[in-house]
């Protein structure tokens, strides 16, 4: 477990002392985060590092998870899908189950904190039981830019009672009568996925994965999903291969919650057939060190998404000093400042052109890689996210 002072070596100078001063504006007022589970999932993973760091800064922060029946979590899974745009049928009985479980949790949980941060839709209706004191914030981690209207209308009746909502991208915001803030996701530079690796450690991991290092590596890390365009990546590689002897690694997990996932993977395997320089690596969800080693071994990293949430794999690769070429989608455009910290592209041809350009101009790769790393240091590290939260609490705390 990393402590706040451990980050001094990697964050911009003055940041940690500055965060300590910022935290003083929040001290004395307890923060309680509530989500749906303490095990698994991106929110739990984020809170596991966020809460101890807040405590290191002298802030009294707690984390509680709601409990629910299997039916409740089926309902909230349907909520999740509907809010991301999928067609879902939610009969009245299911909505009733959602409300009942939220009421039951409200009776069991103690809202003994000034700031209550509710994550995602599952516990959103807890707001019905809010005490008169304190500030309630709804933190939405999912893309609700195109929600199924009926489900959003149901959820919205609770969201409007919060003091503020927080989203990961401006386009996720909704028409709401409450202030809506933007807090970008961030990477942890000291985690297994991003920490420095010794050359021996890296070599061992690559050898375990059977990845040769005798040719430049073009890498895309993402699940096998049409929106990540793995077939487009193979076409891109083929265009570049005519002039450069390189290899392509497509690494990621299967999209288990996507019925099309298996089809996409078999199409990718079919497209890669007979080419010994294309490596398809199916990695388990906890393959953090493996992803770290692959990103460090890469010559150029691609994230050729057609649709994207935030796309933190871009920041992960930039943090390792790699030039990144990404699809012009979602949060990728926030991370890749065109021609400064990377390149965004809109086609297979555009991606191939940029790869050519970079391979023929190693000094550009070095410059873009270096600037990309500094951009991540300033904007997409966990310490920046901590600061955003402290600033939000300070701001809301003043508006009494």
């Amino acid at each position: 477990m990393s402590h706040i002072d451990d980050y001094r070596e990697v964050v911009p100078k003055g940041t940690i002392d500055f965060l300590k001063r910022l935290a003083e504006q929040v001290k004395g007022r307890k923060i309680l985060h509530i989500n749906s589970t303490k095990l698994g999932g991106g929110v739990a993973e984020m809170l596991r590092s966020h809460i101890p760091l807040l405590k290191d800064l002298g802030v009294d922060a707690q984390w509680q998870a709601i409990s629910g029946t299997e039916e409740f979590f089926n309902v909230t899974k349907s909520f999740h899908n509907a809010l991301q745009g999928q067609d879902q049928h939610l009969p009245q009985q299911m909505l009733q189950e959602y409300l009942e479980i939220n009421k039951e949790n409200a009776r069991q949980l103690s809202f003994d904190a000034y700031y209550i941060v509710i994550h995602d839709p599952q516990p959103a209706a807890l707001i019905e039981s809010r005490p008169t004191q304190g500030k309630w914030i709804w933190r939405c981690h999912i893309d609700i830019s195109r929600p199924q209207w009926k489900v959003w209308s149901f959820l919205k009746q609770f969201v409007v009672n919060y003091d503020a909502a927080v989203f990961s991208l401006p386009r996720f915001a909704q028409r709401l009568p409450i202030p809506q803030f933007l807090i970008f996701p961030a990477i942890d530079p000291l985690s297994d996925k991003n920490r420095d690796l010794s050359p021996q450690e890296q070599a061992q991991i690559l050898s375990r994965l059977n990845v040769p290092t005798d040719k430049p590596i073009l890498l895309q890390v993402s699940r096998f999903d049409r929106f990540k365009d793995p077939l487009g990546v193979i076409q891109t590689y083929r265009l570049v291969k005519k002039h450069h002897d390189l290899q392509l690694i497509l690494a990621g997990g299967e999209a288990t919650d996507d019925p099309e996932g298996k089809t996409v993977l078999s199409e990718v395997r079919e497209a890669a057939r007979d080419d010994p320089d294309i490596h398809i690596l199916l990695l388990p969800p906890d393959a953090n060190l493996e992803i770290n080693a692959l990103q460090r071994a890469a010559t150029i990293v691609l994230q050729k998404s057609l649709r994207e949430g935030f796309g933190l794999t871009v920041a992960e690769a930039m943090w390792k000093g790699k030039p990144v070429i990404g699809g012009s989608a979602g949060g990728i455009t926030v991370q890749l400042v065109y021609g400064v910290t990377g390149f965004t592209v809109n086609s297979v041809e555009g991606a191939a052109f940029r790869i050519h350009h970079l391979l023929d101009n190693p000094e550009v790769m070095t410059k873009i890689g270096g600037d990309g790393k500094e951009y991540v240091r300033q904007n997409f590290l966990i310490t920046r996210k901590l600061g955003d939260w402290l600033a939000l609490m300070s701001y809301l705390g003043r508006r009494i």
Partner: protein
Amino acid sequence: MVLKIADHPFLFTGCWELREMVGRSARDEQQLLEAIEEIPFDSLFYHTHSFFLRHKYIAGPYPNDFATWAAIQVRDRVLGEKLGILDPYDFENLEALRAEIVNIIDEHLSQLQIIPRAIYGEPFDFMQSRIIEVPTGLEARNLTEFRKILATVDVSVVYYHNFEAILRLGRRKGDFALWIEEQLDLPDLAQKISRLDFYMTSLESIRHRIIKLCDEVLMRETLR
């Protein structure tokens, strides 16, 4: 000349920018124009000034969000160039800056047959700044201390005492130049700092330039 000790120390204050969504976006340059006419000053400030807080180390393609969006997302480099050269320091206040931006876009559109649109790019999402002041607790009484603290403090201090002080708090010279002139009796150094072009570079680069100017004075004193 012997370097003076200040009667009143310089108190270093930094800031953190909280980003609030205005709830408005533009997909084409006409929508951009109409929105700029109506957005609150905090939003205009966010897209033209506090830009620097988000690009502390690296200067972006253009030094304001409107120019960057036109050039990169709409692919209208002409409008990008026209907006990119705007220097907010040339304007008395944000209303005058708003009028000029509106005028530039309006004139640009009047010369076109079709309205340029972000067909493949992202829409422009209007945001606004909520600046949280953070006193660092650090103070300097002479130029040596000032230079030493400036070199190690969070770079938002450079933003707060120059951009925020000049453009929102009305301290036209900037806090660094004002203190150095009034408290240290170094008008030449103060003038050099106030003449720095804050708009065309990054905060980190401004920090280095100010430190270099301080070092030149300190070096002269050492050799004296």
